[in-house]
C-alpha cells in the first residue's frame, strides 16, 4: 500500500466520504453510494480542499456530490431512497422445503438431506395450505414461492398442490406471483417437465463444472448426476424455445458451489456453463452449513485462494463477452447494479439490513418457520436460534415482529457494525448474521475475521480495479450486466 500524504486535511470542503486504495488509485464513496476513483495526487488535493472551482477535478467531484459547497441535497435524498426501496415491503421470497429426501449426496450439502425412505420428512398438504395462508399475508406486492429440499421433485404432489392453491389464493390477493424450483433434475421426466413448463415454474439447478468434477462432488448412485442434469437443462431450454420464448431470457439457471477441487478449474467451469447455454453463473464460495461443516477439511480453502479463482474466472468471462458470448457472473452483477446503477437489486444476503424475516421466510417440511434458509439449515444441525414459529400457530405480524427478526435487522444494519460503519463499500454491501453466529458465535460478528466479508471486499476491489482501469469494452459489459430484463412469462396470471 502506498501512503498518500495529506498535509492539512480540510473539514469544510468535502461531504462525508470513505476512502480505500484500489489498484493504483484511491476510491472514494459517499453516504448515498456515489463513487470516484482518484489519483493519489487528486485525492490529496480533495482531502486538503485544494480544488479550485471550475477545474475539471472540481467538476467531477461536484457532479458526484462530494463538494459541500455544491451539494444537491435532493439528489442525495433520492439516491438514498433508491437504495432502500426494499424497506417498505415485507418478505417477497418464501422458501418451501417440501421434503428433506434427496437422491443425490453432495459433499457440501447444506440442506441436511435425508435418505429416500425418510418419508416423514415430506411436507403434507395440510402444512402446505397453512404455509400458503401465511405467504399471502406478506405486505410485499410481489411473492416468489421457491421450492427447495432435499430434492423437491421427490414430493411433486405437494409441489403441484402448492401451485394450485397459491394461484387460487392469489385471485383475491392480486400479487405478482412467481414460482421457482431448485432441483438437481435427476428425477425429472416428461410428465413433470410438461407440468412445470405449462405452469411457468422457473427452474434452477446446480452445475459444479465439467462432468468428472460434478460427479465427484454430487453422487447419484449408479448414474452420472452431471449427465442427468445437463440432459434436462437442454430439454427444458428446448421446451422454452418451442414455445417461442427468447432463449437469451428464458433458460434454466444454474449455480455453482466452489470447493477446493474447483479452484484450479475456473476455465473448465466457465466453459461448461457456456456450453449449456447458461447466461449467468454464480461463483458461490462454500458455506459453513450442513454437511460442509463436517467435510470442511476436504472442501474448504482460504478465501484468498477463492478470490484468485474468482478473478481468473471473471477475467475469462469478460474475454468471452468481448468475443460476443453473453454470460455474466452473478456476484458481480449484484454489486455492479448497486455501484453503477444506483439501485438495489434486493439480493437478500447483500443488503442493509439483510432479508432475514423481513425479506425472506423459510418454511420447513414440518411447518416450522425460520428467518431464512440458513437459519433452517442450522436448525437441522441442532441450533434452533433462528426458529420463529410454526405454521399451525403463527400469526404473520407476530412473525415479522419476532424478537429474533428484530435482532437480525439491527445486527445486519451496516450503520451499526464496526468496520462496516467506516468501510468504503458500505453503500453496496451486506452481512449475514446467521453466518456470523455460526462462524463467530454472535449474530454481530467481527468483520475483520469474517470469511464472507473477505469475499465481499475482494470482489468489490476487483470490480473497482476494472472500473478504474478505464477499458471501454469492460465498462460496457459491466453496464450490460446491470440491465435486468423482466421475465414476464413467469408471472402468474391473477385471472380465474
Amino acid at each position, binding site marked *: 500500500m502506498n501512503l498518500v500524504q495529506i498535509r492539512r486535511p480540510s473539514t469544510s470542503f468535502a461531504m462525508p466520504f470513505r476512502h480505500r486504495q484500489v489498484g493504483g488509485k484511491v476510491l472514494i464513496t459517499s453516504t448515498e453510494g456515489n463513487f470516484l476513483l482518484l489519483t493519489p495526487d487528486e485525492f490529496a488535493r480533495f482531502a486538503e480542499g485544494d480544488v479550485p472551482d471550475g477545474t475539471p477535478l472540481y467538476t467531477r467531484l461536484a457532479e458526484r456530490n462530494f463538494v459541500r459547497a455544491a451539494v444537491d441535497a435532493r439528489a442525495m435524498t433520492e439516491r438514498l431512497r433508491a437504495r432502500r426501496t426494499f424497506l417498505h415491503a415485507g418478505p417477497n421470497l418464501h422458501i418451501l422445503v417440501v421434503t428433506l429426501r434427496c437422491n443425490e449426496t453432495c459433499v457440501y450439502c447444506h440442506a441436511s438431506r435425508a435418505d429416500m425412505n425418510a418419508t416423514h420428512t415430506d411436507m403434507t398438504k395440510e402444512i402446505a395450505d397453512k404455509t400458503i395462508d401465511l405467504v399471502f399475508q406478506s405486505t410485499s406486492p410481489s411473492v416468489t414461492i421457491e421450492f427447495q429440499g432435499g430434492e423437491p421433485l421427490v414430493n411433486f404432489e405437494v409441489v403441484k398442490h402448492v401451485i394450485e392453491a397459491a394461484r387460487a389464493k392469489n385471485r383475491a390477493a392480486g400479487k405478482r406471483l412467481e414460482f421457482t424450483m431448485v432441483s438437481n433434475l435427476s428425477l425429472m421426466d416428461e410428465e413433470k417437465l410438461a407440468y412445470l413448463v405449462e405452469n411457468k415454474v422457473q427452474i434452477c439447478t446446480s452445475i459444479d463444472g465439467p462432468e468428472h468434477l460434478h460427479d465427484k462432488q454430487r453422487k447419484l448412485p449408479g448414474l452420472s448426476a452431471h449427465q442427468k442434469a445437463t440432459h434436462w437443462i437442454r430439454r427444458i431450454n428446448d421446451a422454452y424455445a418451442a414455445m417461442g420464448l427468447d432463449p437469451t431470457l428464458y433458460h434454466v439457471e444454474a449455480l455453482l458451489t466452489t470447493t477446493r477441487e474447483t479452484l484450479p478449474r475456473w476455465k473448465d467451469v466457465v466453459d461448461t456453463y457456456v456450453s449449456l447455454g447458461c447466461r449467468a453463473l454464480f461463483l458461490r464460495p462454500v458455506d459453513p452449513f450442513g454437511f460442509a461443516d463436517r467435510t470442511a477439511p476436504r472442501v474448504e480453502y482460504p478465501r484468498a485462494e477463492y478470490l484468485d479463482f474468482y478473478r481468473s474466472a471473471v477475467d475469462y468471462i469478460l474475454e468471452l463477452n468481448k468475443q460476443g458470448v453473453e454470460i455474466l457472473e452473478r456476484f458481480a452483477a449484484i454489486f455492479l447494479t448497486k455501484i453503477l446503477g444506483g439501485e438495489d437489486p434486493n439480493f437478500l444476503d447483500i443488503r442493509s439490513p439483510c432479508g432475514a424475516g423481513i425479506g425472506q421466510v423459510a418454511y420447513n417440511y414440518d411447518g416450522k418457520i425460520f428467518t431464512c434458509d440458513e437459519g433452517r439449515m442450522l436448525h437441522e444441525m441442532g441450533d434452533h436460534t433462528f426458529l420463529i414459529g410454526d405454521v399451525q400457530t403463527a400469526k404473520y*405480524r407476530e412473525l415479522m415482529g419476532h424478537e429474533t427478526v428484530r435482532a437480525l435487522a439491527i445486527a445486519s444494519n451496516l450503520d451499526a457494525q464496526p468496520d462496516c460503519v467506516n468501510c468504503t463499500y458500505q453503500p453496496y454491501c451486506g452481512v449475514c448474521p446467521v453466518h456470523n453466529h455460526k462462524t463467530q*458465535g*454472535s449474530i454481530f460478528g467481527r468483520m475483520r475475521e469474517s470469511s464472507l466479508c473477505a469475499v465481499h471486499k475482494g470482489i468489490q476491489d476487483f470490480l473497482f480495479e476494472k472500473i478504474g482501469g478505464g477499458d471501454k469494452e469492460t465498462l460496457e459489459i459491466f453496464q450490460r450486466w446491470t440491465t435486468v430484463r423482466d421475465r414476464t412469462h413467469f408471472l402468474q396470471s391473477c385471472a380465474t
Partner: protein
Amino acid sequence: MRVDAATYPLDALYGAAYVFIDRCYVLLDKPDASWRVTLAWKKGEPTADQLRALVGEFANELLSCAWRAKIAEQNRAVIESVTAQALGGAMGPPSLDDLEKFDFSEESFEDPLGIALSWEEKHKKKARADDPHAAPPGDAEKP
C-alpha cells in the same frame, strides 16, 4: 487477561463474555480499576497455541463490543429509523383484531403544551355560578 475498565465499559465486557460461554469457562473479576477475565478450557488439555488464540479472539470480541456500543450511540437515529421502517414495512398496519387486543387504557396521554385540548376547553370562560348551562370547571387553563 486484564483490561482497562475505562476503555472497555461493563456492557462491552458482558457482551464479549457472553459470546464465549459456550466454548469455555469465563470468570470475570475486578481486582482494581481494571477487569480481569479468566478463560478456562472446558475439556481436555489445550495447547499453548489454542489458549493464545482463545485469548486473542476474546480480546477482538471485546474491542468489537466496545466499539459497537459507541457506534450505536452515535448512529442511534439512523439505526432506529431504518429498523422501524424495515419492521413497519414488513408487519404492515394492524388489523382490527390486533387493535382489539391493544391496551389503550394504561398511561394517561401526556400533553404538556395542551395540544390535545379543544378550543373550547382552552378558552372557556369561568362558569357563572347561577348559569345552569355552564360546563363544570375542568382542568386548569393551559397557555
